[in-house]
C-alpha cells in the first residue's frame, strides 16, 4: 500500500530509484543533485538496494560507466546537474545513439560563467539535441512517479532511448513536501525486470557503436530521429497506464483553464505551480488567461502544443534559459517554429526569467502577461524580453 510521508524531493527520487531496483549506479556528486546519489549510496551500503554503486572521478566517467553497464544488460541510473551534465555531454550522444535505456535525474542548475550554483534550466537546454527523452517534473510526487516511469519508458522495446527527468534545482530538489510512496509490490507490478534484446556478452559477440562511413551516417541519423519521434505515443500510453493504476495522470502538455482562453502562459517545471496561482488571480479579475505546462521536452509534442494553443490570441512563454545570441528562450523558439506553417496562429511573446535561482513571484507572472498584451496591442513584439533585469 502507498504511504504518504513528508520528505525532501531529492530523497523521493532516490526512494523511487531504489524501488525500481536498479543494478548499477555511477555518479559524481554536484550541487544541487548531491542528496539524490548520497541517499542512494546509503541505500546500497545499508543493504536496502542490491546494486553496484560505482564511485567515479568525474561525470564523464559516471555516464561512461552507465553506458558500459547498460550495454551489458544492467538497469542503470545516474544523476547530475549543470557543469556535471555538460561534462557528460560527449557520452550523452553515445548513450542515445546506442539506444541504451540509461535513466538520469537532473537537478537543473545554471551553467557557468559567471560561476553560480543556483537553479535554472540552462543545463537541460544545452543538451537539447542529444537524443534523450527529456521530461520536466513539477512537484515531489511527480519526481517520485517519473523516477519509476522513466525506466519503463526507456526500456520499452518500442522506445530504447536514454531518459532524463528534470527537477528544478533547489526550488524542487531541496523542498520538503508530501509524497505518496508506492510499495515494492505496486512498483513491481508496473515495472518488470529489464530484459535487453541485445547485450554485450563474451559468449555471443556483437558490435555496438560501430564506425560509420558517410554513405550510411545520414540514414542512421534519420532512423534515430524517426525512432525518437515514434516514442511519443508509447510515452503517452505508459503515462496513461500509470494513471489507471495509481490515479495520477501525466500528459506531454497539460492545460489549466486553457479552454477558450485568449492568453496562455507556457512554462516547464516547478514554477508552473506559481503560474497557476497567477492565472487564478487574473481569472478573478475577469481576464481570460490559461496555463500550459510543458512536461515533455524531447520528443517535442508538436501536435499536442498546436492543439493546445489553437484558440488563443497570445502565448506568453516563460523560459528559465537563454539562447545567447539567438531568439531568447529555447521553449519559445521551439513553439514559434512549431506554429510557423499554420495559417491561424497566436502571437508568441518570449520572456527569459528566473535565471540562476532568481525567484518568479505570482505578481510577476501577472506583470509578464500584461507586458505581453502591451507588446501585442502595440503591434511590436520583441524577439524576447529578459524579465525584471536591471538595465
Amino acid at each position, binding site marked *: 500500500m502507498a504511504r504518504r510521508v513528508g520528505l525532501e524531493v531529492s530523497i523521493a527520487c532516490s526512494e523511487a530509484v531504489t524501488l525500481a531496483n536498479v543494478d548499477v549506479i555511477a555518479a559524481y556528486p554536484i550541487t544541487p543533485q548531491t542528496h539524490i546519489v548520497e541517499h542512494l549510496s546509503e541505500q546500497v551500503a545499508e543493504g536496502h538496494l542490491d546494486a553496484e554503486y560505482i564511485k567515479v572521478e568525474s561525470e564523464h566517467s559516471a555516464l561512461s560507466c552507465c553506458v558500459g553497464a547498460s550495454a551489458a544488460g544492467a538497469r542503470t541510473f545516474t544523476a547530475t546537474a549543470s557543469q556535471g551534465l555538460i561534462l557528460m555531454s560527449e557520452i550523452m550522444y553515445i548513450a542515445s545513439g546506442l539506444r541504451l535505456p540509461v535513466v538520469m535525474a537532473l537537478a537543473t542548475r545554471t551553467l557557468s560563467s559567471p560561476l553560480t550554483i543556483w537553479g535554472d534550466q540552462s543545463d537541460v537546454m544545452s543538451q537539447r539535441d542529444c537524443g534523450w527523452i527529456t521530461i520536466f517534473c513539477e512537484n515531489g510526487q511527480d519526481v517520485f512517479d517519473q523516477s519509476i516511469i522513466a525506466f519503463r519508458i526507456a526500456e520499452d522495446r518500442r522506445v530504447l532511448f536514454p531518459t532524463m527527468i528534470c527537477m528544478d534545482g*533547489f*526550488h524542487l530538489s531541496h523542498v520538503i513536501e508530501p509524497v505518496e510512496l508506492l510499495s515494492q509490490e505496486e512498483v513491481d507490478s508496473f515495472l518488470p525486470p529489464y530484459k535487453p534484446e541485445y547485450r554485450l556478452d563474451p559468449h555471443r559477440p556483437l558490435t555496438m557503436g560501430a564506425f560509420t562511413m558517410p554513405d550510411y551516417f545520414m540514414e542512421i541519423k534519420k532512423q534515430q530521429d524517426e525512432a525518437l519521434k515514434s516514442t511519443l505515443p508509447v510515452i503517452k500510453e505508459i503515462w496513461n497506464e500509470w494513471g489507471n493504476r495509481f490515479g495520477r495522470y501525466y500528459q506531454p502538455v497539460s492545460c489549466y483553464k486553457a479552454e477558450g482562453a485568449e492568453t496562455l502562459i507556457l512554462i516547464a517545471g516547478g514554477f508552473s505551480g506559481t503560474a497557476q496561482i497567477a492565472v487564478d488571480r487574473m481569472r478573478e479579475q475577469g481576464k481570460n488567461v490559461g496555463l500550459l505546462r510543458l512536461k515533455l521536452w524531447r520528443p517535442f509534442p508538436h501536435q499536442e502544443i498546436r492543439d493546445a494553443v489553437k484558440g488563443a490570441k497570445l502565448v506568453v512563454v516563460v523560459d528559465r534559459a537563454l539562447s545567447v545570441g539567438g531568439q531568447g528562450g529555447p521553449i519559445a523558439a521551439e513553439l514559434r517554429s512549431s506554429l510557423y506553417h499554420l495559417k491561424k496562429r497566436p502571437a508568441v511573446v518570449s520572456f527569459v526569467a528566473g535565471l540562476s535561482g532568481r525567484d518568479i513571484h505570482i505578481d510577476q507572472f501577472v506583470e509578464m502577461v500584461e507586458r505581453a498584451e502591451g507588446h501585442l496591442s502595440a503591434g511590436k513584439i520583441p524577439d524576447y524580453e529578459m524579465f525584471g533585469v536591471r538595465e
Partner: protein
Amino acid sequence: MIEVRIHGRGGQGAVASAEMMAVSAISEGRYAQAFPSFGPERRGAPVVAYLRISDEPILRREPILNPDLVVVLDPTVLRAADVGSGLKERGGIALNTCRKPEELIEQYGLPHCRMATVDANHIAQTIIGRAITNTAMLGSLLKLEPLVRLESLFEQIKERFPAVAEKNIAALQAAYDETSIHDFSKAIKGGK
C-alpha cells in the same frame, strides 16, 4: 495557508526546524512545504528557512515575503536581519530573548504585532547543554500558534535526533511552558 519564516544563524537548525514542522503537519494529514533560503551554507551567518502549512495542496514555489509568523532563533539576528519585514497585519513573532519585547520593538523597529518571548538560550543551555535553540523555539512558536500537535513534533525529534531526543523534547516543552504572549497589535488598535 499559514506561512512561517524562521531566522537564525548557520548551524542553529533553522532549516531542520522548518523541516520538522513540515513533516509533522504532513504526518497529521495536512499539506506542508519547507525549504531553506538556497545557497552556500556558512556557519554563523544569518540564514532563513521557510515553512508553509495548508489544508490544500501547496502550488507556489517562491520564498515567503509576507509571513503570518516569524521565528527568531538567535537574539543577535535582530541586528543582522529585518525579521519583521513583510509581516502580515495579524501576524506574530516568536523571539528568543531575555529582554522585554517593548524594548526590542523600540530598538529594532519591530512591527507592533503579537509576540511570544522566551529565553531559549537559557533553556537550551540548561537542558541540552548547548545554546542550540531550534527545538525550544518551536515550543514557543506552538504556544503562539498551535500549528501542529506537540506530540507530532516529539515524534519528529525522536526520529531525527534519536540520541538527544529526550533533552530536545524537554527543551521544547519547557519553552512552550515558559513563553509569554504579548499582543501589541491590540494596543495599537486601542490607541487609535
